[in-house]
């Protein structure tokens, strides 16, 4: 996990940076032509190191900014992942191929989804040859989902996809989901065409009326029907620029979405917190009827279950362990963004949390021709402690705790 995290962060692409900003203003071909190599400037030694460092800094920073206001988020989610398996997925414009990249990202997506949404469910639908096929029903187990994707038989490509069929299939399951959970679909679409049996606008209207959110990640180009569908159902629509951008688009879906106004009334769900037991003699478990020595005892009916989270097979009580639940807390209590500290107030000598020395203001700003834009110091406004860029990223993306606020008294 840590390796992965490292890799994505080291990734740097100047073109990508320009395209990203252009995207907000309009079509990139209407823009004035930008020469990406102008961004790179050599310093006096003819080295690009400093510019690259600055760019890297900015990339890291850009990823960071996020909404820190406390909004209501639905932490019980129900999602269908719809994967296009049409012939268009065999294109090799994404390496190694659209299909292979999609499958490997889908696997990472599933793991991360369950990591961050521990009491949610996910199912997989594939579409090819004009039909849709359900690979897994909604389940709370990530391994079930990954296993079907690993099976080569399930991932053959054929013909054209059918958007309407897959929407209908996902809808037929999602409408039975209890109202306290969210209903979502995520479509990974490689094809520019779809083969539909009826009027897709009717399907979209029914999705809207049932509060189902549809998000689409397009691998080829923007498609009007997808854009319209996402807009109407309040989902997100993105077309990938390159491999890394594909991952970004996909992983944007992982944090729980804000709850829509229609379901904005809190409902209480009854849950049990079973305790784990280890016996010296094996006894039968209620879920598989196999003899086991360890397991969890349902808090209501005392039957033994092998794994959490699950529904008790006897009394149907939802069983979770408290660490599972605690995993989703950080979405509810986000920490504030740190602010960049300008050079003139950069007095701290080292990072508060990792003891890394900061760059010295006097030696770098005078000596070098390409002065660093940033002082490398970031401040938490609550506890007034200074952090380095790596800790800033780490604190906001991994720990979700401000070490300064927790380790000093100033915030209390």
């Amino acid at each position, binding site marked *: *996990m*840590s*390796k992965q995290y490292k890799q994505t962060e080291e990734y740097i692409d100047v073109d990508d940076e320009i395209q990203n900003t252009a995207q907000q203003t309009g079509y990139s071909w209407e823009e004035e032509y930008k020469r990406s190599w102008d961004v790179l400037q050599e310093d006096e030694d003819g080295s690009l190191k400093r510019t690259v460092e600055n760019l890297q800094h900015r990339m890291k920073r850009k990823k960071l900014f996020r909404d820190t206001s406390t909004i*209501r988020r*639905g*932490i019980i989610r129900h999602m269908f992942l719809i994967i296009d398996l049409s012939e268009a997925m065999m294109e090799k414009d994404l390496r190694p191929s659209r299909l292979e990249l999609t499958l490997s990202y889908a696997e990472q997506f599933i793991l991360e989804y369950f990591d961050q949404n521990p009491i949610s469910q996910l199912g997989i639908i594939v579409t090819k040859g004009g039909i849709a096929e359900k690979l897994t029903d909604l389940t709370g187990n990530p391994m079930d989902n990954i296993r079907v994707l690993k099976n080569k038989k399930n991932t053959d490509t054929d013909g054209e996809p059918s958007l309407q069929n897959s929407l209908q299939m996902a809808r037929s399951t999602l409408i039975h989901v209890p109202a*306290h*959970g969210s209903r979502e679909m995520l479509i990974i679409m490689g094809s520019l065409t779809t083969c539909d049996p009826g009027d897709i606008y009717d399907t979209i209207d029914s999705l809207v009326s049932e509060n189902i959110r549809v998000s689409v990640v397009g691998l080829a180009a923007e498609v009007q029907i997808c854009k319209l569908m996402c807009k109407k159902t309040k989902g997100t629509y993105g077309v990938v620029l390159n491999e890394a951008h594909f991952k970004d688009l996909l992983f944007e879906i992982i944090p729980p979405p804000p*709850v829509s106004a229609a379901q*904005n009334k*809190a409902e*209480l*769900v*009854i*849950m*049990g*917190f*079973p*305790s*784990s*037991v*280890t016996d010296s003699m094996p006894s039968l478990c209620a879920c598989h009827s196999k003899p086991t020595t360890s397991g969890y005892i349902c*808090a*209501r009916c005392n039957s033994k279950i092998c794994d959490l989270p699950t529904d008790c097979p006897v009394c149907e*009580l939802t069983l979770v*362990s*408290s*660490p599972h*639940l*605690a*995993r*989703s*807390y*950080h979405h*509810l*209590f986000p920490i504030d963004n740190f602010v960049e500290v300008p050079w003139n107030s950069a007095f701290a*000598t*080292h*990072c508060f*949390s*990792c*003891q*890394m*020395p900061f760059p010295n203001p006097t030696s770098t700003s005078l000596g070098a021709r390409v002065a660093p834009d940033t002082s490398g110091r970031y401040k938490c406004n609550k506890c007034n402690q200074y952090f380095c860029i*790596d*800790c800033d990223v*780490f*604190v906001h993306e*991994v*720990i*979700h*705790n*401000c*070490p300064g*606020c*927790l*380790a*000093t*008294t100033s915030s*209390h």
Partner: protein
Amino acid sequence: MNALKDTATVNEDDANLLVLIIDTNPLIWTKSAKSLSLKEALRHLLVFINAHLALKHDNEVAVIASHIGVSKFLYPIPNPSRLSENTDQAVDSNLYQRFKVVNDQVISNMKDLFEDVSTLNSYPDKASSMIAGALSMALCYTNRIMRADEIGHIKPRILIISISPDSPYQYISIMNCIFSAQKLGIPIDVCKVHSEETVFLKQAAHLTGGRYLKLQIPQGFLQFLMITFLPDRFTRNYQCLPGEEKVDFSASCFCHKKMIDIGFLSSIRTVFNLQI
């Protein structure tokens, strides 16, 4: 349990980073002074740290104090020049230089910490210490070291010497730390020296694949440290410890802070209401 998978990647030649978090709540240490005082415990801990450094030449150590109202690095600190004035510079020919540096810094920084009584007096919750802050700092520090070491040669672990009871207000932040440690594959070991069991830290050890030890015989502190916590992550694969006890996974409700078995969960904000 996730942490167990990663043991396959641990090698015999790996260097080890030990981040030691010492709970220095003076009020609780005074209570336990009869069986084991802080001074004595510190002496044991310094021997333990030296033993860790002596095991391999590239082993690293960091020491963080989790005090009332503040947590602070005791070693390494960014500008140790100030220190050398206070401590005598004389080189002891019978002592490995690195041991001396670590010991001196830890002792003198600890002294500074105890001399500063203003934060201690102003902080309301005197029963607990800032363990969540110390853990967050420890994780940031390990993250920095792991980032600097590109080939993945350094294997970090965290050891908490805990004496204060859990503070329910730190629950969420401690849980956040546990999950990030789990994600990074860092085991958290816990040694509980005094007072009753801590549920949070027990869960921490359980979830990250670390070890949990409740000290039964305080006089044998050093021996327990050496046997249980000195072995590195590679050696632990071959060591067999007494089986894990029952881990309490029940949740505490948000309204009364009581531990419950069955509760109600709001679908939007997690708030537990008391059992029917």
